């Protein structure tokens, strides 16, 4: 396994834990209603988002700087993973738009909390999709003998 491949597997594992932790904390602390009114709850959630993003950034940026562990082949795979990431983000936004439009159609307006939820869920999808895209890239390259 290439170093970037190992790192992506680790990142995927940590990102799944991160996403589950966010969902569990969000639901167990009171969900959307409390998020709207409780500033300390929002702070906890913000800490989780930002902490996860810093970890994600460190996981990939630290390996990109190591020339003995990251070369042109890894760079190609990393760049190609952006297609998977982009597609996942678009699909996530389409799902949000369709779901919210249908659910709040009669009200004619969408609660402001969904702005945060859309943004942060898109970030989660984006980070997960990049790791999946990298792993898919290695699998595809190894298959093309």
């Amino acid at each position: 396994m290439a170093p970037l491949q190992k790192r992506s597997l680790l990142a995927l594992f940590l990102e799944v834990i991160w996403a589950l932790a966010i969902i569990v904390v969000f639901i167990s602390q009171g969900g959307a209603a409390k998020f709207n009114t409780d500033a300390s709850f929002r702070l906890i959630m913000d800490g989780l988002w930002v902490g996860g993003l810093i970890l994600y950034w460190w996981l990939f940026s630290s390996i990109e700087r190591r020339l003995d562990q990251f070369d042109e082949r890894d760079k190609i795979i990393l760049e190609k993973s952006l297609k998977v990431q982009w597609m996942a983000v678009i699909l996530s936004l389409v799902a949000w738009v369709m779901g919210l439009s249908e659910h709040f159609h009669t009200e004619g307006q969408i609660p402001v909390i969904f702005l945060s939820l859309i943004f942060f869920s898109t970030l989660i999808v984006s980070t997960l999709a990049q790791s999946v895209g990298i792993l898919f890239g290695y699998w595809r390259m190894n298959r093309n003998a």
Partner: protein
Amino acid sequence: MPKIQNRIRRLRFNRDEMTQQELAEKAGCTRQTIIAVEQGKYVPSLELSFKIARAFNVPLEEVFQYE
């Protein structure tokens, strides 16, 4: 269909069984990339191809052949 073949395995053997790690260090890439190139799963850039040829101290066409 034309394909780029390589003689890296043979050249390593001729150099006292040079390891893939040694070649990777000389060429400035990872061992996994050398494995992928050797197995024909990845076609390296022109720059890396020259570095691999230089690691063996042979011309480029002695390492890679276009068939």
